[in-house]
């Protein structure tokens, strides 16, 4: 699915003393099968933005289009099935007596047959590698396991676009790497992933394109190299190293990922 936001504005609490314009005309598109990274500091509007993608929030003005059709005209449940949203610290929404039951919640809301529900639960648990935890209580799991259970719950809807808001927050480095590997797998399976993250290094590793937000507006949108080299002071460590060397060693190019940066550095004469 191609998800497009056209000039989306969002004003919280309009007409009250607490009025604040969180989004100021944001336009971007999520192409099928890509990983789009969304970066920006606190207050940039990242979380507000992604809640428009499944219409949990409705734009004050502007449009949200799913495959060219106004998302508001679609049945809410259908839209939310196709565009899955995983909040930050999603484990705070686990509620069922077993992991299996919890993951089954979303497919059941879609009124699928029991057999279909079970199949999807199996699929999701396997994808997140928590199949052996199916009968456990979600409240008895470790932090990383809970995180995976929560993501499995959304994945069970078989969304075409999966939005992850700070999915690695609070995880140890090993769990983090597993999650990034999952994102790559999802993309390979044809699912678009929107990765909202304050960790530029992880965005650098997996994103096909990057959207940088600043105070509710799009500061930059393009390939990771375009966005990050455009503003090296707010870039992942790899880009910062490379751009410091560019002046004296322009042959270094525009590497973004770890491996390509390492290769570029090794290729420098004398290193």
């Amino acid at each position: 699915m191609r998800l497009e936001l056209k000039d989306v504005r969002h004003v919280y609490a309009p007409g009250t003393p607490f009025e604040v314009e969180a989004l100021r005309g944001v336009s971007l598109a999520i192409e099928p099968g890509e990983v789009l990274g969304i970066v920006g500091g606190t207050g940039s509007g990242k979380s507000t933005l992604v809640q428009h993608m499944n219409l949990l929030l409705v734009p004050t003005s502007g449009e949200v289009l799913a495959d060219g059709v106004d998302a508001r005209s679609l049945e809410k449940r259908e839209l939310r099935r196709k565009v899955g949203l995983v909040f930050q610290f999603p484990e705070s929404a686990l509620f069922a007596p077993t992991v299996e039951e919890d993951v089954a919640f979303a497919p059941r809301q879609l009124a699928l047959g029991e057999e279909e529900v079970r199949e999807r639960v199996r699929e999701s648990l396997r994808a997140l590698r928590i199949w052996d935890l199916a009968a456990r209580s979600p409240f008895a799991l470790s932090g990383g396991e809970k995180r995976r259970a929560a993501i499995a719950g959304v994945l069970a809807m078989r969304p075409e676009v999966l939005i992850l808001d700070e999915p690695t927050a609070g995880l140890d480095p090993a769990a983090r790497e597993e999650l990034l590997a999952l994102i790559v797998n999802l993309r390979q399976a044809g699912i678009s992933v929107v990765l909202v993250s304050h960790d530029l290094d992880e965005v650098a590793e997996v994103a096909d394109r990057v959207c940088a937000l600043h105070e509710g507006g799009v500061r930059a949108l393009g390939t990771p190299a375009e966005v990050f080299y455009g503003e090296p002071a707010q870039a992942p460590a790899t880009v910062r190293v490379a751009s410091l060397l560019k002046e004296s060693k322009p042959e270094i190019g525009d590497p973004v990922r770890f491996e390509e940066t390492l290769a570029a550095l090794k290729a420098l004469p004398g290193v």
Partner: protein
Amino acid sequence: MENPGEGTRPGGSLAVSCERASFSYPGSERPALSEVSLELRRGEYVGVVGPNGGGKSTLVRLLNGLLRPDSGRVRVSGRDPVTEPFEVRKHLGVLFQNPENGLVAPFVEDDVAFGLENLGIPREEMQGKVAGAIRAVGLEGYERREPSTLSGGEKQRVALAGLLAVEPQILLLDEPTSMLDAAGRREVLERLEALRAGKTILHVTHHLEELAGADRILVLNEGDLVADETPERLFSDAALLRENRLVLPVVPRLALELGLPGMLRTPEGLAGAIIKRTQSGTRTG
């Protein structure tokens, strides 16, 4: 009833010591901490790393008396935190992971004063200490703010101020930045850096780069203390890092792969080292 206890000597005395301390959570199959022995001297800055579930948080809670060891001995400035928790907590403060759940009062000022109130400090003395602590964390002007309106970094700084007001000699930091975003982490780490002098610090974290300035780093894995190294040695030991699921951040990793010292933390440092090497034309290390 002073009990200087074993293991304390004036000047360079032991701030913290564990002797074969073990602890298992009720109902769990394996111990959270297994015969761990360690010592922290006054003024040392020691890091603690290791995979989740390895015992790091358990260690913190044994040191401040929230948990009692199943066997072995724990001493803080010569005192047993289980039998003398109040005394220990006068000199030992803990900064916890969750910025939200450590703040108890509806206003910043009152929360910072909470520890002082508990210790029965007279009101006249409290004003100065509270103001000083708020200043030390850079939150002047925030006195009447409500915790729910603060950012993660600000909340942790309030929590830190609350600890500093009591003027502890020992600080335990239990993953204080893991729930914060990049800006919040920077805020909190800057303040910790500035306030380290003269204190004994035990810093539990997943972010190895936060421990570059540490005197030593302890590695806890599955309840065992598996290593006690300087940052230089730990950062360059690829096998040790891998075995304990420790990941160096990007810059040190690049440095190591290029045969440069793993202690290079900043992009500027790495870029500088690379330029120097290309100029000298020889490979070192």
